[in-house]
């Protein structure tokens, strides 16, 4: 890695100095800038996968299994094939013939593409019908006759390891049970000692229920295998186009240079669009079989029932402390439900993702976790919904445990947190489980949140509300909930992090045209994050070129360098660094060219945004645009210096970046109905310097809404037969504008010391940090130590009656 700059060292409040503006009125560099992407979206001119239309294109639909566990004795497709307009019907048997009935998952497991032996979750892909249009395909799919032999299902993770539990993965030779792995982190002996020595130990069982990212756009693909050139082009909903291309090459045995993955505009991802789904593979096979382009767009039920879910972590936490509230240890035992195939997307070395960051933001030496993962008859997946590789579960665990401890000690949760937070001088800080937090000033962020909230006054008001309730004057209670989170984003260092052997480094190419306009090619893929704007701003900041003069190219594997894509808030920490590095390389080369043109020594030149000039004679200089023209012109360059003004890099991050934040949620709870209203939400985020504050705030807003959704509404429930009870938005509830308050945001700025421009990721911070704040607030109101999400009116009511825990099978 080469960088020419040290990151900014100012770590005080947000820098409010005026940024120079371009002729178009945009900031030259960082600052609030309206998005380039908006012009097309606002006119209905976005180009999403479902908008792709090719001559002769056919449509495929999936026939899904109606039950969770069943052997397939036979499939009769003849009636479907006889329907007018049907071109082909694919089944597991068809795919078996070409070696594609099973595919590898992102966790080195295998997953059925179309069922060959038995169904392992409800909604699993059984057949793929290709027809002239979707209506015909759906008609034909209903004419497929499948002989299912029902089997007992494992719907409850806690039953998966029972002696008499049905074996789900009997396709794997030698497998005799449903256990996927047993994994631990931290120091068990040291932790046991800390607990033995503790004055106070609090133990709490909790479930982070199965949820779903549910992006507004479902998953889909359009595959076109050109029979003449042998080139396969796939327009698809993917957050990681390059990883998909390599996987298609590995799965289908197709030559990688003959595969082009195009990820056009993506209607939200949140982790749902990281993996490869059977529908994508079927559209590819369908195109090969029919010789025509084949589109597959899943319906909403298919999206909710079969694609990558989130969470499903049964956790038992224990926290140890001294009598005065100094935390001395934390341990946790997890039962992780991975569904029927281990399809989790995470670095190979970490089967439980980054869950072992569960020690959180506090200073104590002893911690240990054990994670046991099991197969169940549910959909595969498991790392999704803006979770930062399971840091969502980790933060929920620690932030709930801290509140449980506060309850046990009868201490104010803000005071307990302030007492135990890591101090600024402890950074870089190595956690008991091995993470090295890069930078932070945690007390300042918490204090800022408390000040913004008016914490003392809120507590006074709460006491008055409680008094009125106790007097029987009101049914209302008021809650104040806190959470403090440390995120770890920007996966990651190659030596530690890979997915299926692909290192998590990202390429970047920058080319300055002769007239000084630029094109930046990045490997990451926006699903709404605004990369076309912010990545132009990074180059603009480093080179002084107006952002409107910089075109950002992404989402097309033929036209961008290799990289692992956008998830885990990794775009800015990894590819953003790459964009800064190529800019620095351009600047260094421009210095040599400018010096040649100005007939001086490069060392005599100084940089100001957009221009090299002679030290002591500022009027003698050359703008980057003039240098670009000179680089393409007849100027004789020094030996060893090539013409043109291009640069490329592959950025291998030395560490993750660690954004953090303090959140406070104020709720009003009607004890008569159990209804929760979020009155206020205060969020102080520190993600280092903000490239575009408007976009950062937008990302935080969205994540906070996710938190309200998970805490109060969203859950994928199943009955004991494994029937999915949330297959539409009538059952899987998403927060609307009515459930969300007007967010109150604050910021502190602590740069990352190892990132070339000091920035950290932020996309998932609020999704990670907000659920415990909401839950803590509701429980603070009703005076219950713990109750499981989602805190629907019924769940709140039950918690107040003494039944706070959910099971996998709870139906609401």
């Amino acid at each position, binding site marked *: 890695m080469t960088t020419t700059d040290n990151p900014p060292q100012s770590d005080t409040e947000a820098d409010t100095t005026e940024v120079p503006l371009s002729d178009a009125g945009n900031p030259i560099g960082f600052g609030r800038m*309206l*998005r380039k*992407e*908006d*012009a*097309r*979206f*606002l*006119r*209905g*001119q*976005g180009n*999403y996968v*479902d*908008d792709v*239309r090719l001559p002769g294109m056919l449509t495929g639909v999936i026939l899904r299994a109606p039950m969770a566990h069943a052997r397939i004795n036979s499939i009769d497709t003849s009636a479907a094939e006889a329907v007018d307009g049907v071109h082909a019907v694919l089944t597991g048997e068809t795919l078996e013939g070409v070696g594609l009935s099973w595919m590898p998952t992102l966790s080195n497991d295998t997953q059925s593409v179309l069922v060959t032996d038995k169904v392992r979750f409800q909604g699993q892909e059984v057949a793929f019908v290709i027809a002239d*249009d*979707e*209506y015909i395909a759906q008609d034909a799919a209903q004419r497929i006759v499948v002989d299912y032999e029902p089997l007992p299902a494992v719907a409850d993770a806690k039953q998966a390891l029972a002696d008499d539990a049905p074996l789900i993965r009997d396709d794997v030779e030698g497998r005799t049970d449903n256990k996927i792995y047993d994994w631990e982190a931290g120091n068990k002996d040291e932790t046991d000692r800390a607990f033995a020595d503790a004055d106070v130990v609090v133990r709490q069982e909790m479930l982070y229920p199965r949820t779903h*990212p*549910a*992006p*507004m*756009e*479902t998953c889909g693909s359009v595959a076109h295998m050109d029979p003449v050139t042998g080139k396969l082009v796939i327009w698809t909903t993917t957050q990681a186009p390059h990883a998909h291309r390599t996987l298609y090459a590995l799965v289908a045995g197709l030559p990688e240079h003959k595969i082009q993955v195009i990820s056009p*505009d*993506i*209607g*939200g*991802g*949140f982790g749902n669009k990281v993996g490869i789904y059977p529908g994508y593979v079927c559209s590819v096979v369908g195109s090969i079989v029919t010789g025509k382009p084949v589109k597959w767009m899943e*319906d*909403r*039920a298919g999206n909710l029932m079969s694609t990558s879910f989130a969470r499903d972590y049964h956790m038992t936490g224990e926290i140890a402390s001294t009598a005065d509230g100094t935390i001395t240890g934390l341990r946790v035992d997890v039962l992780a439900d991975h569904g029927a195939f281990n399809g989790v997307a995470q670095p190979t070395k970490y089967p439980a993702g980054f869950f072992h960051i569960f020690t959180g933001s506090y200073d104590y030496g002893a911690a240990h976790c054990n994670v046991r993962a099991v197969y169940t008859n549910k959909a595969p997946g498991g790392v999704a919904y803006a979770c930062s590789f399971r840091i969502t579960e980790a933060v929920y665990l620690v932030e709930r445990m801290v509140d449980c401890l506060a309850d046990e000690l009868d201490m104010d949760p803000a005071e307990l947190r302030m007492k135990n937070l890591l101090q600024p001088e402890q950074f870089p800080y190595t956690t008991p489980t091995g993470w090295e937090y890069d930078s932070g000033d945690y007390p300042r962020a918490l204090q800022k949140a408390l000040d913004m909230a008016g914490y003392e006054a809120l507590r006074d008001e709460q006491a008055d509300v409680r008094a009125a309730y106790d007097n029987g004057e009101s049914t209302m209670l008021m809650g104040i909930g806190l959470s403090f989170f440390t995120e770890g984003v920007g996966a990651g260092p190659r030596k530690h992090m890979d997915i299926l052997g692909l290192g998590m480094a990202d390429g970047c190419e920058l080319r300055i045209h002769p007239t000084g306009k630029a094109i930046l090619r990045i490997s990451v893929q926006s*699903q*709404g*994050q*605004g990369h076309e704007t912010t990545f132009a701003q990074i180059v603009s900041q480093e080179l002084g070129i107006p952002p409107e003069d910089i075109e950002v190219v992404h989402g097309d594997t033929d036209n961008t360098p290799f990289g692992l894509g956008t998830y885990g808030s990794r775009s800015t920490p990894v590819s953003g660094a790459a964009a800064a590095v190529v800019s620095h390389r351009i600047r260094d080369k421009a210095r040599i060219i400018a010096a040649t043109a100005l007939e001086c020594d490069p060392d005599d030149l100084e940089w100001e945004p957009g221009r090299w000039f002679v030290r002591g004679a500022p009027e003698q200089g050359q703008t980057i645009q003039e240098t670009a023209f000179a680089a393409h012109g007849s100027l004789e360059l020094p030996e060893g210096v090539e013409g043109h003004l291009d640069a490329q890099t592959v950025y291998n991050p030395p560490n993750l970046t660690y954004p953090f934040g303090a959140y406070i949620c104020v709720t009003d709870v009607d004890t008569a109905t159990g209804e929760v209203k979020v009155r206020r939400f205060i969020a102080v985020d520190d993600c280092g310097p903000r490239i575009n504050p*408007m*976009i950062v*705030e*937008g*990302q*935080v*807003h*969205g*994540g*906070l*809404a*996710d938190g309200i959704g998970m805490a109060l509404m969203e859950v994928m429930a199943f009955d004991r037969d494994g029937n999915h009870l949330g297959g*539409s*938005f*009538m059952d899987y509830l*998403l927060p*609307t*504008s*009515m459930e*969300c308050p*007007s*967010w109150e945001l604050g910021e502190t700025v602590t740069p990352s010391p190892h990132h070339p421009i000091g920035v950290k990721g932020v996309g998932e911070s609020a999704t990670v940090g907000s659920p415990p704040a909401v839950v803590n607030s509701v429980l603070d109101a009703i005076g219950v130590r713990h109750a499981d999400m989602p805190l629907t009116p019924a769940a709140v009511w039950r918690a107040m009656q003494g039944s706070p825990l959910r099971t996998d099978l709870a139906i609401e």
Partner: protein
Amino acid sequence: MEVTITVNGTAVTRDVEPRMLLVHFVRDELGLTGTHWACDTTNCGACTLWVDDTPVKSCTMLAVMADGHTVRTVEDLDTGGQLNPLQEGFMQEHGLQCGFCTPGMLMTGQWLLDRDPDPDEATIREAISGNLCRCTGYENIVRAVRWAAEHGNGEAEATDDDASADVETSDEVTA
């Protein structure tokens, strides 16, 4: 069965299956892909367009039910390429991220502004509560509608720049 529907000011006649959904009619028959499909169940509002000046979720309305009626889609909001105040508000206030819910939000928001040129936050939140968004947490969508109310939509201080605000009488054809 033959239907004639006036879409964005232009009468179009097509022979369609009786079961064809209106959302598929505008997307697949007319190529107006700004109207999105996302849920099947009238919950999310990504497919919101206007039928006779009223927002309708077109994933649960049949095209034949619109026979003889007028339909307006997001493609009709701008005038000669210039964004209308609500579209401009969404840009100014960062009321969109992935853009997938945006056409539906715009059609609902415009309907509100045409009836209430100066809606307060609570009114806006209620009006858009049938349109789901996973990216924005709604805050900036509310601000976007307010921006439009304050910048030339309806009765508020129209300027030359805002002349295109009079979308109700627009006869621009984008179908």
